[in-house]
Each structure stands twice: as C-alpha cells, then as structure tokens.
C-alpha cells in the first residue's frame, strides 16, 4: 500500500538516523518525496534528497538534477553528500555544478563525494579548487582528495 505524506514524513523523522530509515521507500514514493523538498524544515527536505538518491529511477534523478539550484544551502549540502549513492555517469553533471557552488558546505561535501569513476571534468574542477578556492580548508580538502585519487604529486 502506498504511503501517505504524513507516514513518509514520520518515517524520515529519525533524530540520529541509520540506513534502515529508508526501508520500503521506492519509486512509488517519488511524488511525495518531491513534496517534502518544499518542507518548511530544511532537514526534512534534506532527508527527501537522500531518499531520492537511493531510488534508481530516472524520475528521481531528474528531480535531483534540478535541486542543484535549490535556494536552500542545506538541501544542496544534502545533495552533495548523497551524490555517492548515484551511478557515476549520472552524477558527473550534478557534481560539477556542486563543486562550483558558492556555498562552502556544498563544495566541502561535493569534494568528499568525488570518486575515481567520475569524469575528467570533475577531476579538473577538483584541481581548480585545490589551486584557487578562496577558503583554505576547501583547498586542503581538494588536495587530500586528489592525493587519494592519485592525481597529484607527492
């Protein structure tokens, strides 16, 4: 039986959640999750992002791709942190935009999400961040990630 919006909101309200929180959430919940992206509580909208990222469905991916422009930084931070749940080929364009975001938190978690399977544009952006980001911890984080990916010198 499909969940109601309140059932889904309640399921996603764990204070210190674990992965079980997403049990039973699938393609049929995509329209409700899209509604929760407008929730007045930013953390609930963020939970909807994480739930969508765990549903391998083109509709979910389309919604997530649109969320790179969400006005709430908390939502974009969640998107950056949930990119690791997407197929690399699906994540490249999203990740590229998030690495270029004006919000420090978004860039911080986007850097952490980069993997060896992402494309050359993503890796080039990572190198740009290492050299040019105005925030020292972001430059350091990009440097660490490049080292982890074996894309920088010793």
């Amino acid at each position, binding site marked *: 039986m499909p969940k109601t919006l309140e059932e889904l*909101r*309640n399921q996603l*309200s*764990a*204070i*210190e*959640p*674990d*992965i079980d*929180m*997403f049990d039973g959430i699938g393609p049929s919940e995509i329209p409700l999750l899209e509604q929760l992206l407008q929730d*007045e*509580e*930013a*953390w609930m909208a*963020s*939970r909807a992002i*994480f739930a969508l990222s765990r549903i391998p469905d083109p509709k979910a991916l389309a919604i997530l791709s649109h969320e790179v422009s969400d006005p709430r*930084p*908390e939502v974009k*931070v*969640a998107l950056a*942190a*949930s990119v690791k749940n997407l197929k690399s080929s699906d994540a490249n364009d999203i990740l590229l935009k998030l690495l270029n975001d004006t919000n*420090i*938190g*978004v860039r*911080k*978690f986007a850097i*952490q999400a980069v993997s060896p399977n992402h494309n050359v544009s993503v890796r080039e952006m990572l190198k740009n961040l290492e050299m040019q980001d105005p*925030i020292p*911890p*972001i430059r350091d984080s990009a440097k660490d990630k490049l080292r982890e990916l074996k894309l920088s010198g010793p």
Partner: protein
Amino acid sequence: MFSLRDTLANRLANHRLPKGYRIGMGIMVLCGRRPVGITTLRNSPCPESVIVHFKSLLPIDNNINQFIKTQLIAMQRLFAEGKIAVLPGTTEDLSNNPNLQILQNLNVGQCISGTTTQDQNTLFSNRNDVGDNELVVYIVATMISNVTSAIGCAAHPAGRPGAVVVQTNRRWVVAHEVGHVLGLRVHSGKSDDLMFVNAGWTNVPPDLSDNEYSTMLKSSLTRPC
C-alpha cells in the same frame, strides 16, 4: 530557568500557575513542579542541576534566539519533573570565526558514542571557558552522517561533553540529546518517550521514566545545586 515575564501571562490566562508561584520572584528554576527563585536555589531541596551552554555557528538572530529559548524551556520543564534543574550557561555566537565556517555543515560520521570525526573534534574544542562538567550544545546548519543528515548528535570527544543540533521546530531535540549526554544511551520504541528514536513525539510533553531520571541524576555532569 526562565523569566517569569515570558510565561506568567500565559499561565495566568490558563489558571495554571504552579503552587508557590508569586509575581516578583524574578528568574526561576523549576524543582519538580515547584518554582524556586534562583537566589534561593542553593538552599532549596532541589538536589541536582546541569549547566547547558549554547554556541551557534549560525548568526544568532531572532530565529536562533527563539529556537534556543523554546528548546531550553521545554527541557527545563521536563527535567524538573525528575528534580533536575537545567541552568542556562552562556550563549555564544561563533559565526564570525572564519576558522569555524567550514564546520557550519558538519561531518558527524557514524554519530556513535565514543567515535568522533575530525570535524567534531575541532568543533568541540571550542569550549571557551565552559566548566569541565558543563554541557555545550552547538547549533549548525546541517549535520551529515555516513548515510544521511542528522537532526542531533550527542557523540562528543572525551572530556568535552555536549551535542550538536540543527535548528528545528521539533521542541524536544535538545532535551533528547542532553539526555544522551547524561547517560541515556538507549532509544525507546514508544512515541510518548523523550528518547523515542524519532522526533515525531505524541502525547507531548514526552515522558522520561523513573529509571531514566535516576540515570541522569547519577551522571557526573549533574551536580548538587
């Protein structure tokens, strides 16, 4: 502790003034259901207190102030039922510290007691004259765990007791996290309980059992008034 001016009007309107409550008592602490003036607290039979400081990585505006006040009062009233007075410590705005900007969106890893990330270690090192046995509640924009975002997390480095929360209209999140810090490690499956795993409490205010109050009273962080 709360200001009579903030609550007296509502209580008068609803004829719910606690016994012993008098206009002009000033700043109050609830001991059980009994209000006690802060100046007489040391001589009162309220046995234990815990001091809670707030430090915000977000600029402290009206919304953050209201969030702190709402969460604090909810916690004070609930803990007072177990004769634990929650005394507010300082409130500090850390948003202008450029070194902490990166921590506004915090990586909390597994969020398991005894296990902390570098982000948490750095954040919790900002105690700024808080006493050893006093708690700090840090307010951040987002908390990212290994699997999703968190509303609260009580994992903290040894010797730096505290918790992290995000701003929310769920009223007992700070009380829930402080409960963890004071030794309530187990979540409840009942939505009436403060330690319910989920922020969707029913029959509010939520409940704490006698055993849970007893555990909190035994914590080294609850001190004689």
